[in-house]
């Protein structure tokens, strides 16, 4: 039997409160944030007052993509999707997006979830998601692994 480690509700809330504090401190536009577990399923998702309804779905798609592919969505876009002839249709999954702002959470190298942010520039979305990941005290990978 295998036990998959995954972000729980308290992890999600901790990450979200860090992100919301950063948004308030920097005067960012109202955002949507989604936190998913290792399987890409929602644990926590929110849309701040003033953020458009479509944003929460986009935040979810970013988080889902980062978790199931094990890649930040910006890396998916720059390193994978931009290969000649590739389009999102190759993945055949309507929830997969290449919009930057989805950041994968790894604990000792293992994917345990992801965070997606929307509402600001794609650079800021990604920075906010990364802040949330940073609040989780995840352990870095100390072993040497060969890339799959």
């Amino acid at each position: 039997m295998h036990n998959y480690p995954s972000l729980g509700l308290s992890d999600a809330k901790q990450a979200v409160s860090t992100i919301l504090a950063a948004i308030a401190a920097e005067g960012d536009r109202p955002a949507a944030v989604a936190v998913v577990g290792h399987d890409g399923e929602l644990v926590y998702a929110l849309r701040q007052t003033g953020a458009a309804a479509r944003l929460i779905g986009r935040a979810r798609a970013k988080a889902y993509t980062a978790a199931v592919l094990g890649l930040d969505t910006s890396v998916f876009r720059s390193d994978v999707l931009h290969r000649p002839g590739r389009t999102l249709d190759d993945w055949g999954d309507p929830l997969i997006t290449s919009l930057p702002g989805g950041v994968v959470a790894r604990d000792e190298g293992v994917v345990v979830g992801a965070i997606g942010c929307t509402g600001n520039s794609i650079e800021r979305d990604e920075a906010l998601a990364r802040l949330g990941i940073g609040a989780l005290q995840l352990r870095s990978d100390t072993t040497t692994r060969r890339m799959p």
Partner: protein
Amino acid sequence: MIRERSLDFEMAERAVEATLQARQPTDPPIAVAVVDAHGELVLTARMDGTSPIEIRQAMRKAYTSAHMGRDTKALHEQLLGDGRTIGDWADPAATTLAGGLVARVHGEVVGGLGVSGSGVRDEELARSGLEAMESST
């Protein structure tokens, strides 16, 4: 110009926290969702140990309540009486499973709240969340 009222993020957060706190240790873990007056998601949370299906059902219950302006249990009873099923609405996001409640302010629909996962106490837990939200509005 018209003005439509809708619940905001702070209200949704109060409702979700109150719902989670109303859960007893004997209840299975739950998922909660709050939508705005148009049925669009504002906030959702899934407790540790809850299946992902529960968060989907919580969102569908909240959506249905706000969109139809009826608690999902009342909707179920109404459709039974009318000899219809929810399939007649051709809306895959709609459900008549109990646990979705309409959020109102001065009689006006401002959103919906859905709970899933507890078994028989979904509506009761949703009511706790909604009352906490309304009492602080």
